[in-house]
């Protein structure tokens, strides 16, 4: 229904766009700059995308900088028509059909797992600047205002990790591509706003490639024998922000009034997402 409303509004908006340009509000407009992620993100980098992709001293791709995008889109929109129906196990299909916005833990400022760590808000990769780096971090500006730790020292996943919101991530370089393998994820978060279910068997394999100076491509293979009939792959794109932009503080839980205007009260902590 939400998508239908969005689609209908978009069509109506296109139809009146030209007329609307003539009917702007009487007050003077402020100059606008192109911002990534709607208005949330940093100003887009103005560098030539065809500049060489930077490298660190050890020859690996330099992923530092401020990025926006690269995750967060609703997975069904990234799939081929009919693919979602083939992928979901019956119980997952049934659960997804009952989920609404107001049940999404992300709406109450809880983390959204690795795929929603990136999105319209700014975020960074932080690479250790020496050879044989032990970690790469992802710093998230919003919404949980958290970090993700990716082990780069060759360690394996633990045998039976305690499930967490961001899981256990190990990374390696395959040429210019950073490959991140993640298990140990809990089932308390939603992968995206569509409410596609997953279980603690979720396994993500991300392939991050800086395809040009201002673009970071992320292909993610999503595997979960508890919820899906087969692995599938989705792709996201992040864009580089201006070099002088910074991530900012954003404490989502400070004053979250989600739901009050529509007459729902936030659920008690720990009761969301199932």
């Amino acid at each position, binding site marked *: 229904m939400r998508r239908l409303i969005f689609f209908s509004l978009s069509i109506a908006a296109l139809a009146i766009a030209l007329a609307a340009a003539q009917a702007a509000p009487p007050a003077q407009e402020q100059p606008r700059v192109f911002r990534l992620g709607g*208005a949330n993100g940093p*100003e887009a980098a103005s560098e030539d995308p065809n500049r060489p992709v930077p490298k660190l001293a050890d020859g690996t791709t330099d992923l530092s900088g401020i990025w926006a995008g690269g995750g967060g889109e609703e997975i069904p929109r990234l799939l081929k028509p009919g693919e979602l129906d083939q992928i979901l196990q019956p119980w997952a299909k049934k659960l997804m059909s009952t989920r609404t916005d107001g049940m999404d833990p992300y709406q109450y400022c809880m983390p959204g797992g690795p795929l929603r760590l990136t999105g319209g808000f700014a975020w960074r990769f932080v690479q250790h600047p020496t050879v044989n780096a032990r970690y790469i971090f992802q710093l998230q500006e919003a919404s949980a205002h958290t970090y993700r730790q990716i082990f780069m020292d060759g360690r394996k996943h633990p045998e039976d990790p305690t499930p967490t919101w961001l899981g256990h991530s190990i990374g390696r370089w395959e040429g210019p591509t950073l490959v991140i393998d993640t298990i140990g994820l809990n089932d308390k978060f939603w992968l995206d706003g569509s409410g596609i279910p997953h279980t603690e068997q979720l396994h993500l394999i991300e392939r991050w490639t800086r395809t040009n100076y201002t673009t970071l491509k992320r292909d993610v293979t999503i595997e979960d024998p508890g919820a899906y009939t087969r692995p599938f792959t989705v792709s996201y794109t992040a864009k580089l922000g201006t070099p002088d932009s910074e991530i900012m503080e954003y404490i989502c839980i400070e004053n979250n009034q989600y739901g009050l*205007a*529509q007459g729902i009260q936030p659920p008690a902590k720990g009761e969301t997402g199932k």
Partner: protein
Amino acid sequence: MKKTLWVLAAGLALCMAAPLAAHHSWTADYDGGKPVTVKGVVSKVEWTNPHTHFYVDVKNPDGTVKTWNFEMASTLALERAGWTRKTLPVGAEVTIGGFGGRAVTERAIAASITTADGKALFVGKPGQ
């Protein structure tokens, strides 16, 4: 007619606000078919996240005052667009247009703000 077109234009701005980027889908809380415009005085500012809130006291014809709670973009979106927490202070006279809450009309989302001197302020995109 111009007003209608402006409301539709505001709808365009709202619905084109990339939902993937938003913290919330604004249409869950607010009704795009419920346009509102009020003129009043800012009585309280919540410079907070995930969204800012501006409370506006509006005088009714009978002399009573109703306080509206307008949700706005995040502090990040506003500060990156040049706002500070003092851009729209308590006591400022404003005209705010937007859309009413699905259950509580006076909990609305702002789509336009015009100050007493006719200046239009950037309001960001709902849900951000």
